[in-house]
């Protein structure tokens, strides 16, 4: 059973690292579209997969957040990746199975997964 004690342990662990996520200059942002179009197309498992991978790998320089409709509803689920100093990368038609590769190749090793991008889909 999950308990509030475990949550306390998370707090203690986090307090040692507080500020790292926001303050570092190399902070990478992942933004998942969570409007009606995204949710209907399966954005929730995609968001979950990003959070799970970032947690599993302990990536302290990655922020996962949510936004509304990105504008290309037919290509949902969509996630945008912002790496400081680089052009935004838009991944489209995502599912949870595609996410670990994006995290490993792009967020960790700085290699864009070209075949999942909007450029490859269009």
């Amino acid at each position, binding site marked *: *059973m*999950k308990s*509030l004690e*475990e*949550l*306390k342990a*998370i*707090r203690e*662990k*986090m*307090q040692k690292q*507080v500020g790292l996520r926001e303050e570092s200059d190399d902070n990478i942002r992942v933004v998942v579209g*969570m*409007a*009606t*179009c995204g*949710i*209907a197309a399966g954005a*929730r*498992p995609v*968001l*979950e997969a990003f*959070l*799970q991978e*970032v*947690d599993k790998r302990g990536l302290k320089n990655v*922020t*996962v*957040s*949510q936004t*509304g*409709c*990105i*504008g290309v*509803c037919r290509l949902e689920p969509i996630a945008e990746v912002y790496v400081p100093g680089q052009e935004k990368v838009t991944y489209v038609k995502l599912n949870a199975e595609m996410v670990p590769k994006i995290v490993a190749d792009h967020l960790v090793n700085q290699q864009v997964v070209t075949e999942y991008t909007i450029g490859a889909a269009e």
Partner: protein
Amino acid sequence: MKELSLHILDIAQNSIAAGCSLLELSLTEREGLLTLVIADDGRGMSPDFLAAVTDPFTTTRTTRKIGLGLPLLRLAAEQTGGDLSIGSTVGVGTTVTARFRADHIDCPPLGDMAGTVAALVQGAPGIETVYTHSTGRGAFTFDTREIRAVLGPDVSLAEPEVFQWMREYIGEQEETV
């Protein structure tokens, strides 16, 4: 939307966009009727906007002139012999109530409520979210104020590790009702 939980995730985004500070979700299953309520203390809607809000050509988003969230929920509820009602007052907030006949063949499964609630909290970590699920077998309440009290002011509810914990915690609670 394949699950009721996805409708809830979708409609609750409207509450967040309306600048609410408290979001209350409740699911009540009684005598074949499943009632879901999404209530917020956001900016509310004018009577004119409220009257047109389940029209798919009414929306607040700027990327399209079409908004399907509430129309889809209304359709899903009415297909089971249920209904949708919305009350809203400018400056006070909005309450969306959808009723489903749970034994109707067209009633969608509830789906992953733990995923929905955890995703809502992760996406809007500054808002207090209260989720209550009540059935004939029992009831439980999840309240971000309790979680915040344990985490303290420095740890955000948007942290991936906190998300995982909430997801599993709510999932376990769901099993009890």
